[in-house]
């Protein structure tokens, strides 16, 4: 998956400016950067939910059109997991079955129980999704976002405000998914330790652009750009 020269403004204010980035199969890319630089905006553009004023997004070499229905086939191979997932007013089971029903898939029962098993939620399958704790809810959302086998996983601060146990279950699940399916993942995170723990590569988003992208080890140990160095050391970036 690749984005080229993306520009996005909100009410005349430039948020992204000629941003380019790519992620390949089996790669878990972390995107770090200060609050409000446009990380969420970038993920929404990659997912086809927001259209950029300029630039293109390529999914497996083909450009998105940003007209909902034309991009449907491509959108159906991606998933976006946000910080606060919305639970449909139904059981956990039905929430996870939903994307499969949209695609009229078969063997729904097997797929749903596999997905729930992976996030240790099988025993809660019949609970109303609205009654889950935030950690359980995020695990359900992960199962719901991966049950249909997307090739690209977009994660927006998906473990923010969760306890260590849920964070580790979810991180394991992401690593397992990327490794076993060979999926590409883009993970926006404020938690630098999380980026170090599970990502293969890391990119710093600042001032509307990707300042530096490299293997996670290099970004944290030998950053080339001084802004990256400052950011990974917890200093303010200007």
């Amino acid at each position, binding site marked *: 998956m690749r984005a080229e020269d993306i520009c996005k403004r909100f009410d005349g204010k430039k948020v992204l400016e000629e941003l380019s980035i790519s992620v390949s199969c089996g790669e878990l890319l972390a995107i770090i950067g200060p609050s409000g630089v446009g990380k969420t905006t970038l993920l929404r553009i990659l997912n086809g939910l927001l259209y950029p004023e300029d630039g293109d997004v390529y999914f497996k070499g083909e450009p998105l059109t940003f007209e909902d229905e034309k991009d449907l086939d491509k959108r*159906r191979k991606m998933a976006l997991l946000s910080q606060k997932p*919305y639970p449909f007013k139904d059981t956990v089971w039905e929430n996870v079955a939903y994307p499969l029903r*949209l695609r009229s898939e078969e063997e729904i029962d097997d797929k749903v129980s596999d997905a729930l098993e992976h996030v240790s939620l099988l025993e809660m399958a019949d609970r109303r999704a609205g009654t889950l704790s935030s950690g359980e809810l995020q695990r359900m959302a992960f199962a719901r*976002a991966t049950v249909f086998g997307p090739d690209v996983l977009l994660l927006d601060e998906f473990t923010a405000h969760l306890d260590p146990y849920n964070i580790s279950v979810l991180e394991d699940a992401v690593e397992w998914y990327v490794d076993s399916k060979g999926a590409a993942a883009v993970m926006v995170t404020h938690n630098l330790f999380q980026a170090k723990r599970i990502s293969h590569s890391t990119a710093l988003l600042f001032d509307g652009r990707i300042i530096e992208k490299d293997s996670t080890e290099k970004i944290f140990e030998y950053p080339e750009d001084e802004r990256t160095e400052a950011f990974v050391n917890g200093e303010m970036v200007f």
Partner: protein
Amino acid sequence: MASDLLHVTVLSIFVSVSATLLASAMAVPLGTVMGLHKFRGREVVKTFTYTLYGFPPVVAGLLIYLLLSQRGPLGSLNLLFTPAAMILAQMVLVFPIITGLTMSSVSQVAGEVKETAMTLGADRWQTAKTVLNEARIGVISAIMVGFGRAIAEVGAVLMVGGNIRWHTRVLTTAIVLETRRGNFEYALVLGAVLLTVALIVFFVLKRYQDKGVKI
């Protein structure tokens, strides 16, 4: 008298259920579309719809009377003083209520649900169905409120139905008549039946609020 009561009750249910269903069939899709999309003039349409909630039933009755009377545009159909005219009058009264309440309950969940459905791979039609299903508690309440208004209505059905025995007499118009005749006991019985009917319909609808439908 028992068969009289039965006839009046059955006709009441038939007229109000038909009016509510026919109005809902148009109002729910319309309210959903209006709640889903932010179009220009939405606020104006909203305000206009809310104003119609308070539309005086007798004015609705008058308009439909004029429409259906011998010399009116639809006079040749001979619908005046028939149950069909009463259904039409009740539809006019409940349509804006169901549209408006559907619109507001859909717009409350629209943003989040739309985004969730789309990221999970829903097309436009599936997204609309999902939003409607998530808003179902509000939408079904809208239908309940509409039915409540329909079955409790007197003025308009009296004008266009005529309160004709065995033909267009319903619970509310019968209550008016029996009270005027001084048959207070029978009027009270009719009143109790009216409340019971409304309660039963509400309980039936409530089940759909809890259960929802599969996409």
